[in-house]
């Protein structure tokens, strides 16, 4: 039941965003900025990480990023975690595991099948910055790609 509500909400959000930026996306597609895991943070520190200038500049814009899909929380999850290297441990499933610092959370524009984690994927979406808690799962993220889609490399 809850799942249905969330799906609809996500779907509506996706639709409205798509509607707003329909004209923007197409011409921009050719000029989508590439961003890598090394580009995300300017510094790592015990007292916090600092977003890079590139992330600050590109926030709100459509960017593309390559990485690996971490094991999803559940098959019907609306988001997945993009990691720099394939995750050997599944922090969603294992009590011994926790996420690395430099992850990207990806909210799909529409449902896509999840890939094998050994496979590199290229995700395109609108970069969102700042702490955010997923209302469905409580998962905390700092960086997200919204209205995203991906292709296998």
């Amino acid at each position: 039941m809850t799942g249905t509500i969330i799906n609809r909400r996500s779907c509506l959000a996706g639709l409205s965003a798509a509607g707003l930026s329909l004209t923007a996306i197409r011409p921009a597609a050719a000029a989508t900025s590439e961003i890598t895991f090394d580009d995300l943070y300017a510094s790592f520190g015990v007292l916090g990480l600092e977003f890079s200038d590139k992330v600050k500049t590109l926030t709100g814009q459509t960017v593309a990023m390559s990485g690996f899909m971490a094991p999803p929380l559940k098959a019907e999850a609306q988001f997945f975690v993009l990691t720099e290297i394939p995750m050997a441990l599944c922090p969603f499933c294992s009590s011994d595991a926790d996420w690395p610092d430099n992850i990207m959370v990806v909210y799909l524009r529409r449902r896509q099948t999840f890939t094998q984690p050994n496979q590199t994927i290229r995700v395109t979406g609108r970069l969102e910055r700042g702490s955010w808690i997923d209302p469905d799962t409580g998962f905390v993220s700092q960086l997200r790609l919204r209205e995203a889609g991906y292709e296998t490399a």
Partner: protein
Amino acid sequence: MRRLILALAATTALTGAAFAETSIIPLDRATILVGSPFDFKVELDGVHAQDAIAISVNGKPYAEVFGKAAEYVAEEKGKEDKVLGSALILRDLALATPGTYAVEVKAGDESKAVTWEVYGTSAVPKAKNIIFFLGDGLSVSHRTAARIMSRGMHDGKANGRLAMDDLDRMAFIGTSSTHSIATDSANTMSAYMTGHKSRVNAIGVYADRTPDSQDDPKVETLAEALRRTTTKSLGIVAKSELEDATPAALASHTRNRNDKADIVEMLFDVKPDVLLGGGSAYFLKADVPGSKRKDDKDFIQIFQDAGYKLATSASELKAAAGNNTGKLLGLFHTGNMDYELDRDFLKKGTVEKFPDQPGLVDMTRTALDELSKNPEGFFLMVEGSNIDKASHPLDWDRAVMDTIEFDKAIAVALEFTRTHPDTLIVVTGDHTHGVSIVGTWDDEKDGDLRDKLGVYDDAGFPNYVDANDDGYPDQINPTRRLAMFSSNFPDYYETGYPKMDGPFEPAVKTDDGYVANEAYKDAPNAVLRVGNLPRSSDTGVHSVDDVVLQSTGPGSEAFKGYMEQSDVYKILADVFAFGTVQK
């Protein structure tokens, strides 16, 4: 066996309940420190009116013996509001008189009886200080490998001894949990630090049947007993996140070790005088990039406001050590601190991001310097966290290097006891891994990987060199190396070679479970080993084998033979005379 199954099936059919049964917490044969607060809970399988539930203790009405009545819950709810049965809960009970307590519950056709032993302690402490070394996952093979790699061997005799080789007394420790022969770092350390066994993933509580992870019946932790009965100082040092299961077990109460944000708060509640390790992500408020909290509590600030001096690097730790605030918080990584092999040698892992992390030796030395300023003494827990963290992904070189580091920290403590002989040292693991040394890998042997594995006489001796005499091999990859295997594993590529580019990640998840990580497929000599674990296992698992505990100093004579992990707490409590309030 078949008859037993039939009998069970018949019972199940009669009551209509699926494997549920009446439960009394603490469980049967629980050992309870006199005067220590704990929660009492009765879980009934059926729904019963309050006046239909009779509980007696040593034949008397329970409220008379316990001094107060329990809260009655007519219907406890499980997931999706499923009715689990009635319950009675009595929080913060404490029993002032040692002895045997026979607890009986009757409600309708249900009944259950358990017996507890409430134990007293020595009236006066036997030692002023206790240093408790916990090698996470520390197994016999780690010790042997550390000795050979660090000290060398010729003509069949070790060329030197580890610090832990010279402890006076020892015991075999059973690590099993309340619901399984198998175990994890939460319930095991919790048993050492509370005297009560518990269930996998649980810390400082017995596992109850309700979904809430923080309503489970609590037991007193060592840190709480120390604060309640003494004016001694408390130190916690770990290479893992400080809110990880082992350090958490000194002070936390949760059914779920993943409640890390709450565990930070529980650690703060007991105000450890020295707290050094990783895991700052759960100290940072949610809007700070890198935070893993979901609230705006800023524990960096909260600790500082409580008088803690903060250190975030090895150099800051050195500087902070000289200060006299008496309280020290050292956070050296957002997550787990790096392996010794990466930190000091290969510079892989996350060393580039966190280049100035102190090692376990520096942290132990600083903690001892600070804590020993208290004339009343201290309890210090030092965890070699990464022995386990490397053993899970079958990264034996990293696990052994961290064992050597752990041993060097023990050497610092043994040195401390020369000037402070009133100190008990305990060295133990929380559980084991199924790891074993079978011979050597020899690059100079011709053929494929299996041809390069020397066994029996062909193994010879490895050729690690420690020219600078720092206790670590100068190179982790000489031509003849220890060959170590796990008894259990997911699919992975065996390479017979140290993982020079970063920690090993043997398997990755697919829709069908974990499969070998292709990143190692093309490594020289790589051979696919098809896993023997369930496909849901991402890495090697803990083994059920006994742990070897060693000890030296006043009180250590109590360690002998086979002991349950929960029995160890009884000895610690006796050494510090927790049965007597001393302040």
